[in-house]
């Protein structure tokens, strides 16, 4: 861990005791997108808007707009590739993220 990250975190005097998390639903603030090695790319010409990707995505990272595929939530997409695997028309491709 770099010192820069460590500086931002609270010290033991400020943290809630016992490792408790005092607010509900704050996992949304966790940038799990930083874990990614592969990015999903959608081919909108092939996409039939069946939304199977939306059903399968374990991180709710498929954002639906007006009943159709909208975009990927890149803050939470871990690049697991389940959407690409489940897509019946192979409209999603996993591409290695650039460092």
């Amino acid at each position, binding site marked *: *861990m770099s010192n820069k990250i*460590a500086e931002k*975190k*609270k*010290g*033991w005097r400020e*943290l809630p*005791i*016992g*490792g*408790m*998390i*005092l*607010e*509900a639903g704050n996992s949304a603030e966790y940038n799990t997108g930083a874990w990614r090695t592969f990015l999903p790319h959608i081919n909108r010409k092939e996409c039939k808007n069946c939304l199977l990707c939306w059903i399968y995505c374990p991180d709710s990272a498929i954002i639906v707009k007006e009943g159709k595929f909208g975009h990927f939530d890149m803050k939470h997409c871990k690049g697991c590739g389940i959407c690409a695997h489940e897509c019946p028309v192979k409209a999603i491709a996993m591409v290695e993220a650039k460092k």
Partner: protein
Amino acid sequence: MSTNTVAMTGNIAVANAMRQINPDVCAAYPITPSTEVMQQFASFVADGEVDTELVAVDSEHSAMSACIGASAAGGRVMTATSANGLALMWEMLYIAAGNRLPIVMTTVNRALSAPINIHCDHSDAMGARDSGWIQLWSENAQEAYDNLIQAVRIAERREVRLPVMVCLDGFIISHSIERMELLDDMQVRNFIGPVKLHYPLLDVDNPVTYGPLDLQDYYMEHKRQQADAMQLAKPVILEVGQEFGKTFGRSYGFFEEYKLKDAELVVVALGSSVGTVKTVVDSLRQQGIAAGVLKLRSFRPFPAKELAAALKSAKAIAVLDRADSFGAYGGPLFSEVRSALFSLEAAPPTVDYIYGLGGRDFGVADVNGVFDDLKMLAKTGKASQEVNYITVRE
């Protein structure tokens, strides 16, 4: 103040303290010699004398697990165990402390197997000394009863929030009938007050998470908090002990100093054996020998500085350990006491006696033997053997 003089065993005294405390939840599994605590308490539940939800579980591991859940939910929670039962709780002891849950448990001290033995020995509680529980030790039934009532106050204090273990010697205290004072029910309830809530899980309007994953980036901060809470428990233990004295007439501190002020030959010990040592100190004092006892009550937190200050003018000190720490240099109490004394400019020579394992009798003659050694040690300043085993056949 209305009190009631009764004849009671330590176990029944503890069960009565629990009745007066009236906890929300008790989860327990019976084990000798603590069985009677929950047996008697179960009768109080059945007779409607308390409002407690009594949970009969399949093991001590489950007992402590149920206590943890109930305490996180916001209940005032108690249990009791001994020896192998405490050992089976091992994993959950750390979870109770790490989650900062103010559970209060009676530990009726007994030897650990193998070979199997059900009698008095401090190995069970000593094995749990690093689990993050406060440990209060008792010399007799009265102290076990008084300690349990104070434990609720100490555990639930905002800056402490740690589980407390009240230790009493198996059979010697748990099964011996003693004369003691039972306090008035309402006065006990007023003394402890209502349960102090701290983010209870049952507060569904303010949901919180207990026990989440806590890795390299936060775990150490939470352990540092636990260490701090133990230090913050020290003034609370003193404050509650003094308030208990003001209210009920018996004050408590970190330790009791018996004829210690001008004592040259000093014994440091825990639990019921102190009663025997006091008897010997009395007769030595009649012979003009400056003997004294320091009876430790709070083993966790360990009052190192206060203990060193109280022992600094002794000429020779014997620590009595009713538990071994195999492969260590002496028993657990010796290690801590000697470490505390090391910061003194001139630490008195200090030796260890491991005694009474598995309920082996420890009598006046044994204590006299220890004081005879101390007389020599005070003269020479050097012991030929610093860690000794007594009450054992050679």
